């Protein structure tokens, strides 16, 4: 990292190789990082609205016969497995960041690709689940429960997919310029997004899949 520090007060400017300029900010962190956290903070309200809608409608079926329990609808062993996969992708993500920070581009790439791969497994699981539901007659417009469920998990799935694109984009975009230490903030920000998507799933898994209604 071509880090140069101008000794004069308030003239601290570092420049590195990926267009990230950092002068002495008020909190000593890059604007990018703060912006990312603000975005994630805002996303809490987004997923909160979706989860609340699902909670409102999970027993609210038009013909008066609520889905008795999540166990009757969901394939819990299957979802547990895909939840586990997503959880472990958070591990590979931090390992990727750790490698990039060590200037270990090769392992950084491997872990990033592993993370993306685990994310794809998760998405594949979700597509499988949707297909099964659909075949069982639970389609998007079947009732309020299905609308709320597909929208919630669909929004999460879109978030995961965007994350996968960001991971792959990071790997592809640094093919020529290299995935050196100076890229660690990019990887870090992608990671923050990825972990956030993971903790949203931690909530969804518990609240939607595990907690009994009765």
């Amino acid at each position, binding site marked *: 990292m071509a*880090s140069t520090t101008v000794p004069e007060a308030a003239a*601290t400017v570092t420049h590195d190789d990926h267009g990230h300029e950092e002068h002495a900010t008020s909190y000593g962190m890059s604007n990018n990082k*703060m912006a990312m*956290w603000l975005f994630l903070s805002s996303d809490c309200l987004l997923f909160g609205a979706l989860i609340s809608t699902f909670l409102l409608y999970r027993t609210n079926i038009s013909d008066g016969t609520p889905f008795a329990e999540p166990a009757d609808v969901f394939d819990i062993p299957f979802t547990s497995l895909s*939840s586990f996969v997503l959880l472990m992708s958070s591990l590979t993500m931090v390992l990727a960041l*750790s490698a990039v*920070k060590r200037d270990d581009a090769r392992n950084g790439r491997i872990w990033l690709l592993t993370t993306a791969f685990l994310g794809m497994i998760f998405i594949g699981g979700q597509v499988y689940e949707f297909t099964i539901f659909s075949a069982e007659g639970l389609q998007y417009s079947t009732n309020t429960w299905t609308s709320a469920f597909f929208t919630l998990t669909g929004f999460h799935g879109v978030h995961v997919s965007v994350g996968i694109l960001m991971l792959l984009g990071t790997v592809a975009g640094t093919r020529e310029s290299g995935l050196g230490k100076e890229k660690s903030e990019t990887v870090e920000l992608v990671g923050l997004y990825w972990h956030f998507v993971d903790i949203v799933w931690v909530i969804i898994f518990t609240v939607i899949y595990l907690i009994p209604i009765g």
Partner: protein
Amino acid sequence: MSVTESPETHHDHDAHDDHPSDRSYVMIAIGLAILTAVEVLLFVIEDQIADTLGVGSVKIALILLMIVKFWIVGAYFMHLKFDNLILTKLFISGLVLAVAVYFIMLSAFEFNFWNDGLLDQGLPGGIS
């Protein structure tokens, strides 16, 4: 703020020094995996617990586990624990706001159902 720091400390000024090692990341992940296993186990033996302790205890346990997992990922994987406190504040403000607002909203629905019940019994109720 790193106005006059030397170059060495400068690019580390996000306080990355006491970051967990890869090894501790793996340990944290194993812990998360165990917690997830406990969650699923709770789900499996839900009926047995519900018989003795009531279904509410299962719910509370699952929610506690969820919060612990959430906190571990946030604090270590997203390294809020090691970053400037302002980030935690920003994130927590959105999180707490979301929980509070939606909890009140869902409660309003619940209260409303309760109100309907009152009305069914002929008690004075809402203004609708």
